[in-house]
């Protein structure tokens, strides 16, 4: 179960002669529980195309995808099967806040469960549960989504996805353009979803400090394929070439501890997950 891609390639116009692939020969396995995966790489490297294969939003041009036990191949017709995939794998787009359309916040979040056949009262219950989870209180329920700030809209759109009660949640650049406070809330939400509710959380990001602090597994996408799939420790410590070629930053804690080690001949752990840990380590070292 979960998500499995086998030698998948994707082209936006496969019938054109000499077509270019947006994604080439990609294989991976993602569990439906307990994973916390960061997908990193330059703009235009193929990250967004990759994640849209995770819930059958895109169908592989070559190769095979299997999501929650359902095989997604070119020949199969788009039918109800894929709807059930989308119930299990929720995809939050980068500009998800543009997708709010109902008159009130509550109705917007109720839309998905209603669509999946729940009765109004049940849908309301599910929606309220989702809104509680993301920290949107009752005073917002009757507001129009268009009255909200950019950050609030984004949070509400996430509640809309959570109301589908998916096992796997995929976020495309969830923190881009957010202010620091909303960003922090967002990341804490990921932690709750993953650690407390055992969901699999996959997020695309350019922020290596977030990767270092929160991700358990890192996938590097460059040149339209997967260049690395493993731990962040292994990546930052032993794969300088991949980090360089993919134009990835190093986390602050890594850069600072490395500099201290090199210039002052010390032996500070370069793979500490947060600045608080690095502070502790420096104080101990004194």
């Amino acid at each position, binding site marked *: 179960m979960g998500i499995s891609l086998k030698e998948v390639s994707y082209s936006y116009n496969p019938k054109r002669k000499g077509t270019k692939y947006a994604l080439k020969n990609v294989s991976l396995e993602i569990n439906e529980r307990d994973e916390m995966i960061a997908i990193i790489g*330059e*703009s*235009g490297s193929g990250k967004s195309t990759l994640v849209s294969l995770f819930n059958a939003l895109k169908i592989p041009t070559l190769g095979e995808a299997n999501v929650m036990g359902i095989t997604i191949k070119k020949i199969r017709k788009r039918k109800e099967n894929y709807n059930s995939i989308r119930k299990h794998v929720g995809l939050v787009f980068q500009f998800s806040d543009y997708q709010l359309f109902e008159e009130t916040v509550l109705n917007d979040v109720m839309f998905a469960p209603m669509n999946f056949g729940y009765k109004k009262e049940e849908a309301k219950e599910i929606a309220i549960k989702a809104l509680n989870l993301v920290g949107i209180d009752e005073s917002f329920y009757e507001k129009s989504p268009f009255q909200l*700030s950019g*950050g609030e809209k984004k949070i509400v759109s996430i509640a809309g996805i959570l109301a589908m009660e998916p096992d796997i949640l995929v976020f495309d650049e969830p923190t*881009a*353009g*957010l*202010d*620091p*406070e*909303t960003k922090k809330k967002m990341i804490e939400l990921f932690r709750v979803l993953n650690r407390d509710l055992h969901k699999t959380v996959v997020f695309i990001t*350019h922020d290596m*400090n977030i990767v270092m602090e929160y991700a358990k597994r890192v996938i590097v996408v460059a040149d339209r394929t997967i260049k690395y799939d493993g731990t962040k420790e292994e990546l930052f410590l032993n794969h300088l070439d991949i980090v360089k070629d993919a*134009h*990835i*930053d190093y986390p*602050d*804690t890594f850069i*600072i501890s490395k*500099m*201290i080690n090199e*210039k*002052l001949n010390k032996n500070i752990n370069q793979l500490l997950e947060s*600045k608080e840990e*690095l*502070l502790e380590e*420096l*104080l101990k070292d*004194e």
Partner: protein
Amino acid sequence: MLIEVLNLVYKYEDETVNALDGVSFNIDKGEWVSLIGHNGSGKSTLSKLLIGILSAKEGTIKIDGLALNEENIYEIRKKIGIVYQNPDNQFVATSIEDDIAFGLENLEVNPQEMEKKIDDALNLVGMIEYKYEMPSNLSGGEKQRAAIASILAMEPDILILDESTSMLDPKGREDFINVVKSLKEKGKTIIMITHNMDEALLSDRCIVLYNGKIIRDGKTLDVLLDYDCLAKSSLEMPTSLYLFHELKKNNYKNKEVLNLLWELASKK
């Protein structure tokens, strides 16, 4: 003084409190100033007032000695350019060349001079080879550099960057920041609205807005080391300064490490 702002007050129609509430500051020619603060602190309202998209309820703005009013607005807009957050929202034409020409036509630049102005602006941001490209074919970082070229061609003295890098990847951000650095060296005045404290670190001076008021205005390193001020504004210290600040607080004695962190924070 290039920019003189005195007692500026602005209130949005549906709101009960002032979005800007008695804001005053001056900016010298050639300064690089960061405008920081929590969401809704008034940063973007201030930038809109500076270029005359909104007009103040009270207070005055003077740009290069000219009072910002209906009479002077077009003269003043020649002096100020703004680059926004979303690169896709700032193009009007189908090629980069035409997009830059659009702004110049509005300024009634004569066609003989136009070609040179376009090339100069594109050279300045390292985008000359994209002159005939469609904006939609560019990456995010390239789009933002093209957007800045469109502004630069009009030769403004002042550039306002309203979260211009927040949607860019690390490479795009670096390229963009390098352009800003070179503009600073050429004597342009830069006002940068940002949530990214590493970026704020590059400026000479930081102004902190809180609920429509300036609560701090000073040298960048002083402001970014002011823990209480940043915490109040829900802003984080850059990592190097955070470590420096916390180590000092804990009576940490290793001067070499402290110096190294300070060096890292103050290196531009």
